[in-house]
């Protein structure tokens, strides 16, 4: 593979001190993610997938091992430099959306750019509008976050994650709070973004959702136990159409 490597981790360890006990959340993980990949990180709770996501998302530093993000060794960076990396190179989508309450979709999407002094006011507005158009919320820009459905809120969150044109998006159980149909809609959106070249790292424990990605990495007890490419990934739009059909026949 001569594609550009976005994420490269070598022999990554992460230990936590809980009381007298040392919890080994990650015990030597090697992983490489290239540009344009759509990776599902799977595993039961306690398998270490959340810990990995925190480290990959530059929210936490590894105890041992190296992490190169877009060619930069993250381990050597301080708190402020990590914040800058998150601001310029990463996008986050959370299970519970984490939108600012009583704030318009547009303002929510603008938020990451507010923390970047290089982006002018007009540029910020323009980028936020484009991001909202990309997630299909062209007509909902002025809507307040608390006036939207869960699916719409998650779309705003996705728009927020892509507004800074990141090298990779991290999604943490991004469909966890949504019903099946809305989940499929969100996955279709992620597939669409991925088709346009966006690298996505998607943490989930649902195999159904993982089928929509291109590569599944499964964790157990701090190790990767499976890392496989998905040959025929499910097309979320097809799944959605099928779901509608099923509902239709069920209703009749």
């Amino acid at each position: 593979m001569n594609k550009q490597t976005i994420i490269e981790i070598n022999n990554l360890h992460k230990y936590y001190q809980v009381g007298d006990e040392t919890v080994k959340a990650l015990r030597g993980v090697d992983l490489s993610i290239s540009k344009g990949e759509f990776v599902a990180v799977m595993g039961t709770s306690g398998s270490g997938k959340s810990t990995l996501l925190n480290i990959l998302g530059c929210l936490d530093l590894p105890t041992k091992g190296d992490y190169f993000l877009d060619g930069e060794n993250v381990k050597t960076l301080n708190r402020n430099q990590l914040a800058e990396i998150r601001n310029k190179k990463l996008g986050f989508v959370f299970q519970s959306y984490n939108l600012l309450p009583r704030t318009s979709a547009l303002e929510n999407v603008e938020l990451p750019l507010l923390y970047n002094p290089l982006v002018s006011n007009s540029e910020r507005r323009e980028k936020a509008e484009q991001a909202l158009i990309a997630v299909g919320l062209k007509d909902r820009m002025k809507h307040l976050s608390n006036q939207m459905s869960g699916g719409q809120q998650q779309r705003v969150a996705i728009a927020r994650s892509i507004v800074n044109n990141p090298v990779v998006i991290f999604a943490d159980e991004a469909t966890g709070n949504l019903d099946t149909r809305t989940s499929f809609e969100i996955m279709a959106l992620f597939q669409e973004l991925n088709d346009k070249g966006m690298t996505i790292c998607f943490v989930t424990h649902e195999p159904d959702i993982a089928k929509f990605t291109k590569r599944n990495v499964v964790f157990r007890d701090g190790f990767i136990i499976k890392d496989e490419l998905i040959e025929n990934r499910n097309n979320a739009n097809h799944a959605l159409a099928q779901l509608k059909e099923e509902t239709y026949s069920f209703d009749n």
Partner: protein
Amino acid sequence: MRLINLFKIAIAAIRRNKMRSFLTMLGIVIGVAAVIAMLAIGQGSNQSIRETISSMGTNLINVMPASQNRGGVQKGRSSSQTLDVADVTYLKNNSTLISAISPELDGSGQIVYGSNNWPTSIYSGNEEYSFIKKYEVESGRTYTTKEIKNAAKVCLVGQTVIENIFTDDVDPIGKTIRFNNIPFKIIGTLKEKGDNTFGQDQDDMILAPYTTVMKRLFRQTHLRAIVISAKSEEQITETSAEITKLLRMSHKLKDSEDDDFEIRTQEELISNFGSISEMMLVLLGSIAAISLVVGGIGIMNIMYVSVTERTREIGLRMSIGGKGRDILRQFLLEATLLSVLGGIIGVVFGIVTSNVVANLLAWPILITTDSIVLSFLFCTFIGVFFGWYPAKKASALNPIEALRHE
């Protein structure tokens, strides 16, 4: 992070919680309004006292007999008889700094006119007396040098006296009234001066030549006081020193002897009353300042709750690139904006309250720029001071834990 963006974020956060922001500000609003209103009332009465004293003439110097000590017994000032007309003449002839000088005698008594009578005071001096004490003639004329020389039984009457002994359409000039059974012909009326700050009616008086009062009314040779006008306000101290020197010479006092007279200037009077009203001012001001501090603690309380309540928001801001110092500045700015906004509303509210007090209770008020600037700066300081700790707490949060916070 750009400063303008910081302002946007802080203002948006305040607007998201309008009710809470308003209640937080209320403490500061009341505090600032209280400070401004209290200072306005305090400074107003201070100013009014000064004006009253100044209206008696800022160049005024009062020379009074000193209370005397005879054989260990302290005698009151009124029993002292150390000043007489000769002193006035001596000062007039020898002083270079005096612009006007007059003997002064006063006393109280009953005025009778026809079937009306009224208790009032009589003041008396020479032809320069009205100038020194700032009495102005409304109609008629003042007494002449000849009338002073002859101890003529003439007088000028104040407005309160006119109201009380004459019916509406009677012209008092030319009428004869009796003061303690001595008949006085009214030759003029005095312009209204109103009450002074001490509540004394300055129009309840009659004015007569000092010779008349000395010889015909009280039958005494000593004076109650000598009133002097210095050439200018700046020369008051100098003039007082000269008067002391001249009077000691004319009274032939030895160096070992104390002055048998006492000099009072308006400046002393102002500083005496000034210190009392300044004490009041400090007292009122500090009570108001306490309410401002309480308002500040209110801000701290709310900001503290706000940090806990918005932990997830802080986690999110950090995860999308907010640095610790951005979070610190945001919360600090929120607190400061709240207190500044509260300060602005408080200033307006304070000015309105002061004017209401002035109109309803007829109290003198004085709103100074100083008091506005002072309370404004103080509440800004309070915002920063009490906003610091919660802001610091917010900035030190771990983004992972903050995001997980329920």
